[in-house]
């Protein structure tokens, strides 16, 4: 009598389609997946521990190294949490620029998702195209903050500096052409028979299961749950903008693909509305206990220099208490939870990464399918290991 037994296969951490250093131990029956055990932590840098030893301003550069494909969303989530703790009001211009950058970041993150997801499934052209457009977003990042990825541009109370004059034109030009590029990607993929074969019916997870397992963001909306923090618990002035929240019906990879593409189109619309609202004005709150002084004061007056030195070295003391704030990051709900004991450093800073929680669903979404479909599931979950491992 012939007997069969399952085979154990190691996938990653060095594997191009695991999007970083994700290691999966697969139990296979032929090519069919019986069990998936993810092993994570290869990129663990102890950001939460480190934050307990840094002042509130000094933690900010650590946050854009979490989800390095969407640095400004991370900055925004952290900054809003500290502002909630300190009860700081942000000027309108700063809020509007934050929204422009948060939505451009959403575009950037989704472009990388689309590029890698398509490449994993075998559509190479989309990868090249999407990275071309991402480059423009990177240039805008560089224009305003000097850095292409680790932007560190927002500050508690506003922005580190005002944006240069060419910013509005550059952003406007980009979002004018972006919908055309999205049509181009859709032309390559949406009706492509190979793409449909690989994505329709792949990685199905029902809305109830998705909520039970804690999935948030576009992956949850793909399962038909109409919930978006930007609309339902607005922050940073999102309530002043009109946008649609797309949802899927079939809970599969193809629906999540469609949801993300609509989100990119909506992001362009939000940026356009924000550009129209952009008025001259201050970009930093008038709150000297918390905010850095303007650079001209630092260079030209002794009081300004002392003020800068005090904020940079000692920081500011936060009131005793605890706050949580969640933002709709490109990958799902990104939350920061700060416990303050009244000092200038947090007693505890907890980061609630969307990818970490979403990745938990991988087993449920891939058991019973082929190895090649697992690659599509990893792509559709849109994980980034910098955020999972922290």
């Amino acid at each position, binding site marked *: 009598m012939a007997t069969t037994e399952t085979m154990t296969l190691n996938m990653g951490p060095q594997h191009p389609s695991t999007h970083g250093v994700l290691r999966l131990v697969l139990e296979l029956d032929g090519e069919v997946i019986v069990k998936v055990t993810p092993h*994570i*932590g290869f990129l*663990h840098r*102890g950001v*939460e*521990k*480190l934050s307990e*030893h*840094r*002042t509130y301003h*000094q933690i900010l550069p650590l946050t854009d190294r979490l989800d390095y494909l969407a640095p400004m969303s991370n900055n925004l989530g952290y900054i809003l949490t500290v502002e*909630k*703790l300190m*009860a700081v009001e942000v000027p309108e211009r700063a809020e509007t620029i934050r929204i422009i950058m948060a939505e451009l970041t959403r575009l950037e993150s989704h472009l990388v998702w689309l590029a890698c997801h398509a490449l994993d499934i075998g559509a190479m052209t989309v990868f090249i195209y999407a990275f071309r457009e991402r480059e423009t977003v990177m240039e805008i990042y560089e224009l305003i903050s000097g850095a292409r990825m680790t932007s560190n541009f927002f500050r508690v109370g506003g922005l580190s500096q005002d944006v240069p004059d060419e910013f509005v034109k550059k952003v406007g030009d980009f979002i004018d052409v972006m919908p055309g590029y999205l049509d181009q990607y859709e032309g390559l993929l949406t009706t492509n028979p190979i793409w449909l074969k690989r994505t329709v019916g792949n990685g199905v997870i029902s809305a109830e299961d998705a*909520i*039970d*397992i*804690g999935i*948030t963001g576009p992956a949850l909306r793909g399962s038909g*749950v109409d*919930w978006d923090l930007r609309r*339902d*618990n607005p922050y940073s002035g999102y309530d002043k903008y009109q946008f649609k929240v797309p949802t899927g019906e079939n809970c599969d990879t193809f629906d999540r693909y469609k949801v993300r593409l609509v989100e990119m189109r909506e992001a362009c619309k939000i940026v356009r509305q924000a550009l129209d609202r952009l008025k001259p004005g201050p970009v930093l709150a008038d709150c000297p206990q918390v905010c850095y002084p303007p650079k001209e004061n630092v260079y030209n007056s002794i009081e300004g220099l002392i003020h800068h030195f005090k904020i940079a070295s000692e*920081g500011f003391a936060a009131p005793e*208490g*605890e*706050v*949580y704030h*969640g933002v709709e990051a490109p990958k799902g*709900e990104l*939350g920061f*939870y700060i*416990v303050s*004991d009244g000092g*200038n*450093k947090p*007693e*505890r800073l*907890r980061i*609630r990464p969307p990818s*970490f*929680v979403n990745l*938990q669903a991988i087993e449920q979404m891939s058991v019973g399918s082929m190895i090649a479909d697992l690659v599509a599931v990893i792509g559709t979950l849109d994980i980034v290991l910098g955020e999972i*491992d*922290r």
Partner: protein
Amino acid sequence: MAENNRAVLKLKEKFSASIIDVVEFRGEVTVTVAKDAIIEILSFLKQSLQYNLLTDLTAVDYLGKKEERFMMVYQLYSIPNKDRLRIKTPVTEVECTVPTATQVWKTANWLEREVYDLFGITFSGHPDLRRILMTDDWVGHPLRKDYPLQGPDREPYKGRLS
């Protein structure tokens, strides 16, 4: 006000003996409850008050600052009602174990593994309690306050860190 919060009213009605404290800060309601009743309270919030999403589960180490060293923190969210609630429960160092919330939400699986890994709190009834971020043979729990920032076998950092 915290007293008028829909969840606080119901919890006070049903679990008045288990509620230790109710605080509102910056519009966020935090209810501290006794550890024995935690699963009962979480299930009640999920089943009867539509707090269907466990956003986050974590712990805080109050070494030397509070009588009970650890505090478990559950961040709940209700997708139908769009509101948040934070439930906390104190855990002593001597009896460093909490009943698992995986029976209420599957989300809790990895989040509890992370708390076990980084704080050393164990979860009774957890289906797969292993380390998750640190390696399996790691000694110690890095997010505890008495765990040195530089790691256990390194010279403490002499320069300024903050």
